[in-house]
């Protein structure tokens, strides 16, 4: 078996206990949330008898392990259950909302790579020049602003003062890509700024480190063009840690998307989580937390493997 394939398989097997633990944790988390879901469904009013009946109907009167097992077997078949609030099937809701969140996260990631990597590279190449100082100051400020506040400021500037972009509202990227993207520009900028700054900072320090290595001196000594040295020798090696940082911070994007979606009223998965929390909609919270954390674990695994692929030194271990 080729070593890379074996590594993938080992990691996938190692994931199984983690996934079981995750499912137990998501299930348990919801059962400590105060507020009886049956009471919530009846709108807070209802005779004790009605509440008891509804509890029975929802299966809330049975022991926890039994309910966990039933829930797990349904989830394994791709059925996350129904919302207590409006009776929609959670899986359908997820399928409908996922493209929005995916588009938002991908666009933020794109912005952070397109802006952050060149900024870091420039900063390193022109170390201690005014370019470097300006980039570092901007980085520091960007790391200090809350994303949702930046979103508000962007709305004030681009939507209210300059009338360039819509304030809120949404067209799905699935039905109409271009007008959908127009609604996503401000949210993605707000969400992506933090990661952009993080990347710029990281690329700067790792390019600086790589530029001091012997192989860069060798490359220069044998008369290679500075551009080739920078892009083929320095940047390629400097980007390896950047990939890890992006992987780790996808979690920040996923969590942050909940805040940004709520603020910009975007119908994404994150907004659904927050609405479900307000409504004490147990099955939805349960299903979404499990779904998002499984996604998160898988992304991290993918990033780890990509890392091994990019850095041949890690393949031997």
């Amino acid at each position: 078996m080729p070593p890379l394939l074996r590594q993938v398989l080992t990691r996938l097997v190692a994931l199984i206990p983690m996934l079981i633990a995750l499912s137990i944790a998501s299930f348990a988390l919801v059962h400590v949330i105060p507020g009886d879901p049956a009471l919530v469904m009846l709108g807070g009013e209802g005779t004790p008898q009605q509440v008891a009946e509804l509890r029975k109907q929802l299966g809330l009167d049975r022991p926890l392990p039994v309910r966990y097992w039933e829930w797990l077997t349904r989830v394994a078949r791709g059925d996350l259950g129904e919302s207590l609030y409006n009776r929609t099937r959670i899986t359908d809701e997820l399928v409908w909302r996922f493209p929005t969140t995916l588009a938002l996260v991908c666009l933020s990631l794109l912005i952070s790579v397109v802006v952050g990597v060149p900024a870091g590279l420039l900063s390193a190449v022109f170390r201690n020049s005014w370019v470097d100082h300006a980039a570092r100051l901007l980085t520091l400020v960007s790391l200090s602003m809350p994303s949702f506040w930046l979103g508000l400021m962007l709305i004030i500037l681009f939507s209210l003062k300059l009338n360039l972009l819509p304030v809120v509202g949404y067209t799905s990227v699935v039905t109409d890509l271009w007008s959908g993207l127009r609604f996503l520009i401000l949210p993605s900028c707000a969400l992506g700024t933090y990661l952009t700054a993080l990347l710029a900072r990281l690329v700067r320090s790792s390019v600086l480190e790589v530029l001091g290595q012997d192989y860069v001196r060798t490359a220069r000594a044998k008369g290679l063009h500075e551009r080739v040295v920078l892009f083929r020798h320095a940047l390629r090696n400097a980007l390896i840690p950047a990939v890890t940082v992006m992987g780790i911070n996808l979690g920040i994007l996923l969590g942050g998307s909940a805040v940004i979606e709520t603020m910009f009223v975007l119908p994404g998965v994150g907004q659904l989580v927050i609405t479900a929390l307000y409504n004490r909609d147990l099955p939805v919270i349960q299903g979404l937390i499990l779904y998002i954390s499984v996604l998160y674990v898988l992304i991290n695994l993918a990033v780890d493997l990509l890392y091994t692929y990019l850095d041949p030194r890690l393949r031997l271990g």
Partner: protein
Amino acid sequence: MAPAMSEASSIPIPLPPTALERLGRAWRKIGRNRLSLIGSLIIMSLVLVALAAPFLDLASPVKLNISSRFLPPGSGHWFGTDQLGRDVLSRVVYGARVSLTASLLTMLAAGLTGVSLGIVAGVGTARVSGVIMRLMDLLMSFPPLLLAVAVAAALGTGTRSIIIALSVVYLPRIVRVTRGIALTVVAQEYIVAAQALGSPRWRLVLRTVLPNCLSVVVVQLSLYFAEVLLAEAALSFLGLGEPPPTPTWGNILHDSQKYIRNAPWIAIFPGCAIALSVLGLNLFGDAVRDAMDPRLRT
């Protein structure tokens, strides 16, 4: 008799710098860094203003005054007034009390538990360490802000839930860092030497392992502090923190959303306060990191 003893003990033995000496050296280095000075000045002035809030000549942060709604920033109200006629400056200053306290308590709670668990995982048996680290892996496998939102929702709204929620998020990160350092410290020769001299285990941990871990952990904590402050603002922005009318930076921003078209100042100032304090902490944290651990320098 006495002179002979002093002669024997006066043979110079080069000792490695103690944790305290290193801390002192790092402290002087931090003092020389201009950016860290700016950072600490920002933090200190914010903390001072927050502490002194009741003694400053500020309007009440909660008292309604319908006749002076939506006043733009001016001489009477430097930061303007909000939808209920409350002074925004006063709300931002009083908001600092809640937001800064919540973040500080989170760092204390997560720091104390995290460092203790990390050290136990670093010096304990394989089984103890395994159990602790698998639990931490589990906590780490949730996206951070989402975990905080879920925990805060489970506990009900309020500052207390936010503190617990954010502590849960940062606990595994602190445990990992501490354990990593504790493992390298335990492998050092001076620990082996102390063991060989028959020093009891608990003494070894408290007197040698802990102080040597602390210097590195403190660096990490100062950088987490800035993140916690941002996360605290996000949670209270989502409505999970202190309920109104008590002002927090997050909940002022939440309320300001509806009025950004006509009264953008309600949104601008609390955000500046958050950004300024996070900037201060970041400047300070970076300087501490550079001074303590040259390997981490960026």
